[in-house]
């Protein structure tokens, strides 16, 4: 039964990847991609990683899906041309490359699974070192304490992505177009319930993250989802200028994280040491705010946000 479930999900993944990527309209491809992300989340759940299930659902399927949808909408609104399909020869060649790479990856992967030893040395060190931190969730432990340089640089990548997107869009662009706001009564009522709920869920995920699955990334993605909701409902608008508060929110994750790390160095501790659970919460909160703000701005395609309409 166990195997049957895994096989079904795995087949689903393959079929959905095919549906998302090959043939059919681009819009259908995007919808299929979102469903692929949800199925990935199921796979992570089966692999015993609720953290990844959540991250995949919220970031991999949810926010990425929203970004793809809005980019698709914008490309249509711009009237961008439809590219000419590739030649038949190239398609045949590509099929060969695709099949070959599949076989290769399968062979390599199966050999790797075959050759697995008694378990990763690093993983065992993790299990041994976790209790001393007071955290119950090993993933949060790795992300915030043991390998926090990765996490810090990853938040910097998000910041770089925002600045680089602004650089690509240039000065003359106050904001990219957004679809007209939804002002149907039902939408209004739903937004009134959902928007506060996103904040609540985000804070819960953040707090739960130290012991249970969850953490800054999932929480930040939920906040971003809330921001996207407000934007689509016409409660939040792109703005040509970025207010100081929002600018601080953008860099809060990187600054607070490195600030704590450098203060610890100045106090004679190792660089980026985390002094206690309170610091974990502090860092995670700052990261959540940064992730949420950056993702919403990336969705808006604007420099800033405001409660008032642009025009």
């Amino acid at each position, binding site marked *: 039964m166990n195997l049957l479930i895994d096989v079904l999900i795995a087949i689903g993944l393959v079929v959905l990847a095919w549906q998302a990527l090959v043939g059919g309209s681009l819009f259908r491809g995007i919808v299929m991609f979102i469903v692929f992300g949800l199925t990935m989340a199921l796979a992570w759940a089966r692999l015993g990683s609720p953290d990844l299930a959540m991250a995949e659902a919220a970031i991999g399927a949810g926010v990425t899906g929203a970004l793809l949808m809005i980019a698709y909408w914008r490309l249509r609104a711009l009237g961008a041309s439809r590219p000419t399909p590739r030649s038949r020869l190239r398609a045949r060649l590509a099929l060969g490359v695709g099949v070959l790479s599949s076989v290769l990856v399968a062979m390599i992967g199966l050999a*790797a699974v075959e050759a697995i030893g008694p378990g*990763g040395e690093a993983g065992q060190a993790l299990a041994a070192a976790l209790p001393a931190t007071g955290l119950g969730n090993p993933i949060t432990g790795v992300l915030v304490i043991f390998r*926090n340089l990765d996490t810090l640089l*990853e938040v*910097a*990548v998000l910041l770089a992505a925002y600045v680089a997107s602004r*650089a690509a869009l240039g000065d003359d662009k106050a904001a990219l177009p957004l679809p007209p706001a939804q002002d149907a009564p039902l939408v209004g009522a739903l937004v009134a319930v959902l928007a506060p709920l996103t904040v609540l869920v985000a804070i819960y995920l953040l707090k739960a993250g130290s012991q249970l699955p969850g953490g800054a990334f999932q929480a930040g993605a939920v906040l971003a989802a809330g921001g996207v909701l407000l934007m689509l409902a016409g409660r939040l608008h792109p703005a040509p200028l970025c207010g100081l508060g929002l600018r601080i929110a953008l860099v809060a994750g990187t600054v607070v994280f490195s600030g704590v*790390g450098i203060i610890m160095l100045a106090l004679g501790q190792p*660089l980026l040491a985390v002094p206690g659970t309170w610091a974990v919460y502090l860092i995670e909160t700052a990261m959540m705010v940064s992730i949420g703000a950056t993702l919403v701005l990336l969705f808006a395609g604007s420099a800033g946000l405001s409660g008032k309409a642009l025009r």
Partner: protein
Amino acid sequence: MTAEALTGLVFLPLLAACAVAALPGRLGGGFVLAGLAPLPLCLIVLTGAVVDTGTVSLAIAGFASPLGIEWFVDPLALILLWLNTVIALVVGLYAARDYPPHSARGGRFWALWLLLTSAMNALLLSADLFNLFVTLELVTVAAIGLLVIDGKPAALRAGMRYLVLALLGSLFYLLGVALIYGQAGTLDLYQAGERLGPELLPVTALVLMTVGLLVKSAVFPLHSWLPAAHGNAPGPVSAVLSAMVVKVSIYLIWRLWLWLAADWQPDWALPMLGLLGAGAILYGSVLAFLQVRLKMMVAYSTVAQLGYLMLLFPLFGPLGFTAATYHLLSHGLAKAAMFLAVSNILAVMGTDRLDRLGGADRRLPLDTLTLALAGVSILGLPPSGGFVSKWLMLQAAWAIEGWGWLIVILAGGLLAAAYLFRPLAVLCARPATARPADDVRAPSPAGLRWGGIVALMLALAALVAGLAPAPVLTLLEGGLPPGARP
């Protein structure tokens, strides 16, 4: 003190980038200066430590590998850190003309510039395979953001192509990391090397990672994205892309094969990588010769010169290693100087098409001189840094009786002479007709002279590198890869 110095190398530019992004306006310039100016100080401290002890390492957050991430500095990394810092600072001086930090566009430029500097320093310090992936991504995003900052259609297209290929390259790299972690149970580059052997899986993992990195570093035959990207980026960005960004990926390939797999590289691997380098030298040089635009010629010259870095593999040994590292250093300086000079020429003449540049030396004597001096180093003529590296490389090829490699190195030099003399001849020609248009948008004469002096400084640095190579060579001899140690 070394811990503070290492911290400064990564965190000063990172925090300065945050400050510039969060507080644009008049304050911006000060933060840019605060993020870049102290870096040489950090490096001096670090150099002292490396000279004293040979290598320096630091466990981040106090957790040593395999659980944590470690920074590790040896002479090779130190020299690249110096190169990166010098390029970021000196080319930054040039960029301050085109991108004043208090403008909105300038703010974005400097935020990305600082992020790129920080990311490359973090990459050069890191000894952790996954952390290297993260820094590579940061380098890619920041570099492409800089590439497209002027919004030129050609640059946008080149940036898009670069991004798609770089992301694909990252995927291959990550697949290799997955295999290595599965086999070795650690992500530390040096630890993993000790725990693995020449079995099929580790070698496959290395091949996958190398393919990914070859795409990112545009080594022949995966170079297709480079000329358009480097040829269409803004001048200072082209300089840093050619001088540093593509090279850090090759540096990682060196680390993988000569450190991680020091004891167990398969016999075929090193000559194979060398063949790619030979292909790059010949193909890149011929195409550089065929270009009609000066900047594209310089970009194709980068494709060719990257090939010499891959020749380290077949010529591996103490000589080959110092030669390749010295080539990396002198080419970085010379190529940055070249791109800046070309950028000046482009700004004044309004075009960089070779057939319209006749007689440009009268209007741009300084930049023509820079181009010639940098060319001397690229060619490998004495007394330049390029000469030292080519000479050492020829010696290395001679010592192992690798006549084929010897011929490739010599042919590369001759071809470089061919493609470099052509633009110089054009610039110094006295055309009877075809005066370039005078109504082009050009920076103020003061700004222009400033840019010209900055470019000349870099070209002179590449020359001086040939006059006094001893300290660098001595330093490098203290940090040879495991396989080249006596």
